[in-house]
């Protein structure tokens, strides 16, 4: 059967992704039985029980600090051509950055339309304040970022990307590709796969899919944020050739994630926005959000920014002695783990 349709979930980051990627993995066979291919091409090799087509996104950035496969889109096209499925379903929240970046948007569009003419892009929209807060936590946890939240917000491309009108207007007004979206609240909205399929126009009989497991997307607490910021900076100092994208660092991220929970840093989550900052940011995004919502789902934006939430951050040197000591032990343990991972990588 010839592929007649391509559905691409592009994000947003920190909106539905962890549960969705696992659910896609669990339901790949069921989807294929219904004519939907979730390709093997472009999947990130470290995501063994989840489907993330990160290599497709990374292919637009040959010099980036991540795995790179120049032929990944060609391999995808071959896999689609050889498949009995009529629909191809891709998912990578990193593709939002590719679509929203004027330097890569056209090339991305061409890649999609080269596979098939009928392309639908699906986007789960999330309130930017919570999204950026969560992204900061993720970037600290993955040792990419060591700056404080204010510096991150002031300088990160993330803050620009999630001006939805500026980043995606060319997609949702062009007409050659369908751009669909829905507001997403990770705290209340459930399994994202049925929502993704519905938005993509993929019909599945009730009861066909395995129910998605609740993957709680917990952000770090303030002490854990400080510990991981310090870890990122410490590792860069101890190992001047450290790169967050190197294999040992990527593997360490998993340990960082596990350890962060097992170290029981905090009960409550980090919240980097002061109410004043939050109000300013909410005002900045309000206009573009309404533009986006009117054009994409033909309604009001509807997501309420949490502008009154009190800031909840920590400062390393102001922590109590027990926490300071724990942070230091954490650094030592993670440094040891990183050295072991590097040795293992070089031996392999």
């Amino acid at each position, binding site marked *: 059967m010839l592929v007649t349709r391509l559905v691409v979930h592009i994000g947003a980051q920190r909106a539905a992704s962890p549960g969705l990627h696992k659910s896609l993995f669990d339901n790949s066979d069921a989807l294929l039985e219904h004519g939907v291919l979730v390709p093997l091409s472009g999947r990130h090799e470290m995501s063994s029980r989840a489907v993330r087509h990160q290599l497709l996104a990374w292919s637009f950035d040959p010099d980036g600090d991540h795995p790179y496969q120049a032929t990944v889109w060609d391999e995808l096209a071959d896999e689609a051509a050889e498949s009995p499925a009529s629909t191809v379903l891709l998912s990578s929240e990193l593709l939002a950055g590719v679509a929203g970046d004027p330097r890569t948007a056209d090339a991305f569009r061409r890649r999609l339309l080269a596979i098939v003419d009928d392309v639908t892009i699906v986007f789960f929209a999330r309130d930017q304040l919570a999204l950026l807060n969560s992204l900061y936590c993720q970037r600290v946890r993955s040792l990419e970022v060591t700056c*404080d939240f204010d510096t991150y917000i002031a300088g990160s491309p993330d803050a620009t990307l999630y001006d939805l009108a500026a980043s995606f207007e060319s997609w949702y007004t062009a007409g050659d590709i369908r751009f669909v979206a829905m507001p997403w609240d990770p705290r209340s909205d459930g399994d994202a796969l049925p929502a993704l399929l519905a938005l993509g126009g993929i019909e599945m009989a009730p009861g066909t899919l395995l129910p998605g497991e609740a993957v709680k997307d917990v952000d770090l607490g303030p002490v854990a944020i400080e510990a991981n*910021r310090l870890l990122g*900076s410490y590792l860069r100092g101890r190992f001047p050739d450290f790169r967050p994208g190197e294999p040992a660092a990527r593997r360490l991220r998993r340990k960082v994630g596990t350890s962060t929970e097992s170290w029981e840093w905090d009960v409550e989550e980090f919240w980097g926005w002061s109410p004043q900052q939050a109000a300013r940011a909410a005002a900045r995004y309000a206009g573009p959000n309404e533009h986006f919502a009117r054009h994409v789902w033909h309604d009001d934006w509807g997501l309420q920014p949490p502008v009154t939430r009190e800031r909840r951050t920590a400062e390393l040197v102001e922590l109590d*002695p027990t926490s*300071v000591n724990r942070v*230091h032990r954490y650094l*030592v343990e993670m440094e040891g783990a990183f050295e072991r991972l590097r040795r293992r990588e070089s031996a392999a």
Partner: protein
Amino acid sequence: MTQLVIHTGMPLTGADLVRDQLVACREPLERAGVVLVARDGSKAWDRAVRDVLGGEVPRPLIRLSRRKQQEQSHTVLLSSESAARALVSMSNVTALRAFGRDHGLSTKVVLVVREQLELINEMYCNQVMRLETSASFASFVGETVASAGLELGDQFTALQDSPGIDVFAVPYSRFDGHVAAGVVLAAAGLSEEPALTSTMATATRGSASGSTALPGPVLVTALRLLHKRLTRLGVIRRRPTDQLLAAATVMRERARAEAWDDATFWGWSEELATSAQQHYRPGNEVFAARAWGTVWPDAAPARQQTRLDLPSEPPSRVSDVITMIHRVVDELTAAPPSSGAA
């Protein structure tokens, strides 16, 4: 006529520097009729003041009385930082007045006073540098302000109002670029010439005032983190002070060798400084009006707070700080409780 001059001052107003300079020009001073405490150490000088306030004749005065004191006027000059704390008390002021009266002495007190914001900043740094605290600067300020120990208006009212005692207040800023002992001598109406001949005369405020140069924010942060770790491990409680000081010295030397800091620590945020100024200003103005008949001479320093976010520092510095803390903690926890340095 013999006169008694007591030099004293608020904390960190160069008392050690003044005493060292006076000791260094002991002979020229004696030739000019100014007699000092025979021994050089601060304890002997403090004891001499305690003797006076206790009604006992201090040794320099005994020495003087044995000499031909009728030939010319003489001065007994005592210098003691702790005298300022004693002279806050009405009973001690009364005792000093009685001493002068009973021994026929003209009594003068040279009191060095200092603008509180700079003073508190330096007090905090000194405590951190001696591993005495890991408290935040704001918390230190809160305790210091609440203790009322640095309020001038109330502190020295009894002394300033006392008949028979002449009080000469000197702003600490007057030491800038001058020989501190010479400033004190001049304030008491004595010739500053002997002090200017001293080998210590080149040491002016900040270079030998008993405290080394102020630390930078990275060193302050490192020492606070070290203190917290040592507190958690029970080391602060168990180890003698000399071991802790040695540990702090190791950190300080590392900070200097590796150039951790390119600025000195300044803990005042604009908000905190404004609040403290509002607290101290009325007392300072009362004091200044009584002491000099003018407004308070020292403007509050307008400096930017040196905020430090350790994870944002250059990674090589972060790893050096963390490694040094590890090393010092390891050495302190491994060393026997009574032996050597960290």
